[in-house]
């Protein structure tokens, strides 16, 4: 054990925090872990483990600030005081009496470090649950207790940080890598990941090697016990272009599938409410939405699609392109047509002051009906290409096929983004509820403040709340991220057992949502460099500052390592 100093007597020492005077050549930095031995005749030996969260140097014997000049000129003798504040993480055995001033302080290494950070407690009947979560300042591996991530004792991760430097997505993908490939998660081969890509096309190269990966980073991966490889099994899904069926992507040209729903799926799965996601829930309108969704569901019963067949569309309003099929029904082939059909059912024929179908209007005032139709009509432009009646739908199905599904939302109108997220999450959660898939499902969603805002109500927020509150027992784990946790529904953030903070905005860091961080960490969150995050987990009473290695997978087009091997060329050509 390396002795680093003594417990100070000039400042109060308590069982939970004390100050250390650093001796001679000793080096004690923020985040260093220390151990102190205390003794009391009635209790015996007690060991205090702690983390340094403040260090300071000062000239002792100086009365005035300007004395420093005299000290530098060599005119007065001063002694340099080098002190550190330690927050106690653990006392063994649990006897909460203070250490004696003057007790020697040692750096915690090896076994002591494990004790200080409760690593030795991270295990269950089947073995260790230490999930590599990054590297500590001293180069040792930082671990998360998997049981707080996989739903056994807790679940969900929440990541906060400003855009660009906070590396929310990078850390989320690193965590996924660790989950899927560290071998700590037993049923990792069964786990599925649904990743929403909200900006750029960063996540579209998860399966490509990063050309900028250095030898040093490879060593870091090795130390973490992770292969420095890109993700092996990834599906890339993008919405189609507004015209045609090709995926709407710029940077990645192969291997991306377009996704959309057909009208029958839309009706059967009751996805209508997700089109109203960003609107405040006017009571009557909300009621009408649910009612119409239910009517649509009944209408679509037993239909196969993709087009939705209706029987009662009046002949005179028929636009071209709508034809009678063998059953004598009208085939709705686009979302625009569905909207017109709903308009007819709710408000009656366009000509004259007709009334809508009483079965559909649910006795709502005409104003409410008109508001509903107006909003629906406005959404045609936004979601028309995602809801089609002319082709069988192929919405993303994260539970089938590849292990990781990247679903692109970046180019969609916010309303369409809402719709896709809501529709996918609802579907996924319902299937897990019904027990249709046994493995765990990890959902990565950035911009939680948009989908589960603190102040507004929306159907997506309901789904997210459901996942946050009940998901962990069903094996649905939300890895959510946002710039500002203060703007996200409290219950969504509050249910996250593991919280990660990247670089924060100064005003944001002062909000009560970050009170769980000690003041020194809130301060440091303002200056965190890229590639570093503050990690809080329930078992360890202090947050850990961890560094995670440079992604082994490409995060943009330029980083993709070109594969020019003969094998790759052969695959390309034949």
């Amino acid at each position, binding site marked *: 054990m390396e002795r680093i100093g003594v417990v100070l007597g000039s400042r109060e020492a308590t069982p939970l925090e004390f100050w250390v005077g650093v001796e001679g050549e000793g080096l004690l930095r923020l985040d260093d872990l220390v151990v102190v031995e205390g003794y009391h005749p009635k209790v015996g030996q007690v060991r205090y483990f702690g983390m340094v969260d403040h260090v300071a140097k000062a000239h002792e*014997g100086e*009365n*005035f600030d300007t*004395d420093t000049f*005299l*000290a530098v000129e*060599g*005119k*007065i*003798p*001063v*002694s340099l005081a080098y002190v550190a504040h330690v927050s106690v993480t653990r006392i063994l055995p649990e006897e909460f009496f203070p250490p004696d001033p003057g007790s020697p302080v040692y750096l915690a290494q090896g076994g002591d470090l494990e004790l200080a950070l409760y690593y030795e407690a991270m295990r269950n009947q089947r073995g260790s649950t230490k999930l590599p979560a990054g590297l500590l300042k001293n180069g040792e591996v930082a671990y998360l207790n998997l049981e707080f991530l996989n739903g056994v004792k807790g679940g969900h991760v929440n990541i906060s940080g400003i855009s660009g430097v906070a590396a929310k997505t990078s850390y989320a993908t690193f965590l996924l890598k660790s989950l899927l490939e560290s071998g700590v998660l037993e049923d990792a081969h069964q786990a599925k990941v649904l990743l929403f890509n909200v900006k750029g096309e960063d996540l579209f190269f998860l399966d490509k090697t990063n050309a900028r990966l250095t030898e040093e980073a490879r060593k870091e991966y090795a130390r973490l016990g992770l292969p420095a490889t890109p993700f092996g099994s990834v599906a890339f899904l993008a919405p189609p272009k507004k015209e045609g069926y090709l995926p709407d992507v710029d940077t990645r040209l192969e291997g991306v599938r377009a996704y959309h729903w057909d009208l029958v799926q839309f009706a059967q799965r009751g996805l209508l409410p997700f089109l109203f996601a960003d609107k405040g829930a006017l009571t009557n309108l909300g009621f009408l939405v649910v009612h119409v969704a239910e009517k649509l569901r009944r209408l679509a019963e037993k239909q196969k699609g993709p087009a939705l067949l209706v029987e009662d569309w009046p002949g005179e309003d028929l636009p071209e392109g709508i034809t009678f099929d063998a059953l004598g029904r009208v085939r709705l082939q686009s979302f625009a047509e569905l909207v017109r059909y709903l308009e007819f059912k709710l408000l009656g024929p366009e000509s004259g002051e007709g009334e809508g179908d009483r079965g559909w209007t649910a006795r709502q005032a005409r104003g409410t009906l008109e508001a509903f139709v107006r909003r629906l009509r406005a959404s045609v432009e936004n979601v028309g290409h995602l809801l089609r009646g002319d082709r069988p739908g192929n919405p993303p199905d994260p539970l089938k096929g590849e292990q990781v599904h990247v679903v692109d939302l970046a180019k969609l109108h916010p309303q369409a983004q809402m719709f896709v997220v809501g529709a996918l999450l609802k579907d996924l959660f319902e299937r897990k509820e019904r027990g249709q898939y046994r493995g765990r499902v990890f959902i990565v969603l950035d911009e939680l403040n948009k989908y589960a805002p603190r102040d507004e109500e929306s159907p997506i927020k309901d789904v997210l709340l459901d996942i946050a509150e009940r998901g962990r027992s069903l094996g649905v784990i939300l890895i959510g991220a946002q710039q500002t946790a203060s703007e996200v529904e409290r219950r969504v953030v509050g249910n996250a057992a593991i919280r990660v903070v990247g670089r924060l905005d100064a005003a944001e860091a002062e909000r009560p949502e970050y009170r769980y961080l000690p003041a020194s960490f809130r301060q440091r969150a303002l200056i965190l460099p890229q590639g570093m995050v503050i990690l809080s987990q329930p078992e360890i009473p202090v947050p850990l500052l961890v560094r995670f290695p440079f992604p082994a997978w490409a995060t943009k087009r330029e980083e993709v390592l070109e594969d020019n091997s003969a094998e790759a060329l052969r695959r390309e050509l034949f």
Partner: protein
Amino acid sequence: MAWRLYALDLPWQEAEEALLRGSEPEAFHLLEESWEARTAPPQPWPEPLYFLDGRERAEALISDGERLALLGCVAAGTVVWEGGRMRLLPPVVRRVGVGLEKPLAVGELAYEPVSAVGEGLEGLQEGLRQARAGLEQELAKELVGGLLVVDGPVRAVREGPVLGYIKTHWARYLPKEEEALLRALAPGERTPAFRVRRQGMELASWYLRLPLPPEGVRPPESGLLRVETPLQGDFGALADLSLSLFPALASHPVKDPRAPQNLLPVGGLERELARRMGSREVVARMLARHLGR
């Protein structure tokens, strides 16, 4: 009968510079030519340069019914200037019981016996002063080479050069006419050296004027320092060196009430010594607890 606490606070007089008694301006003997202000070009400080100082503190008066004894603490330390840094050498702190015959342990404090010098309370106090002086002597003997600067008059001769400096001037050394030069001295100037005889020692002494910022109208004796050295070797060179030494180390009136005469390193040393002697309050409490009232 056991020793009992008699008083914690004693009427303490500022230690007079008793050694200065007996100096007579009539025996004024000039050692350097012509009585006028002198300057000298700047000189580098010799290395090592030692500053030695001591402190004493009376902690309690105790009585066993017949006699009185004075418990006190003496400390001495050295600051050395070497390689452009002022460094503190380990100071020595000792607790002494003036008038005791054998050591007295009071809780964790151990007082060594020291004999009184003279009668009554004054004799006890003088004993304490002498204990301090003895400690300073001890430290001075350990210092090898270099130049030693002591706070107060020079009391002993050492092998290397030694300078003593006197901050307050109770005794007169100069005849009336010569005293006029003291008022005329500008900062950084000194008088020629003159001879001082004291208790069998022959000393060379001179006055020098320290800078006293901010400049302005001051009483004529402000910033005046009297420096002395045993009358041997090249005292003139030491006198010139003192002009490079003392003004540079003069303290600032904003920070030290005894500025500028209380030198900066010595001020730091005194603070440190006071710290090493322990808190006055804590000591008083321990004495009160163990020796009762």
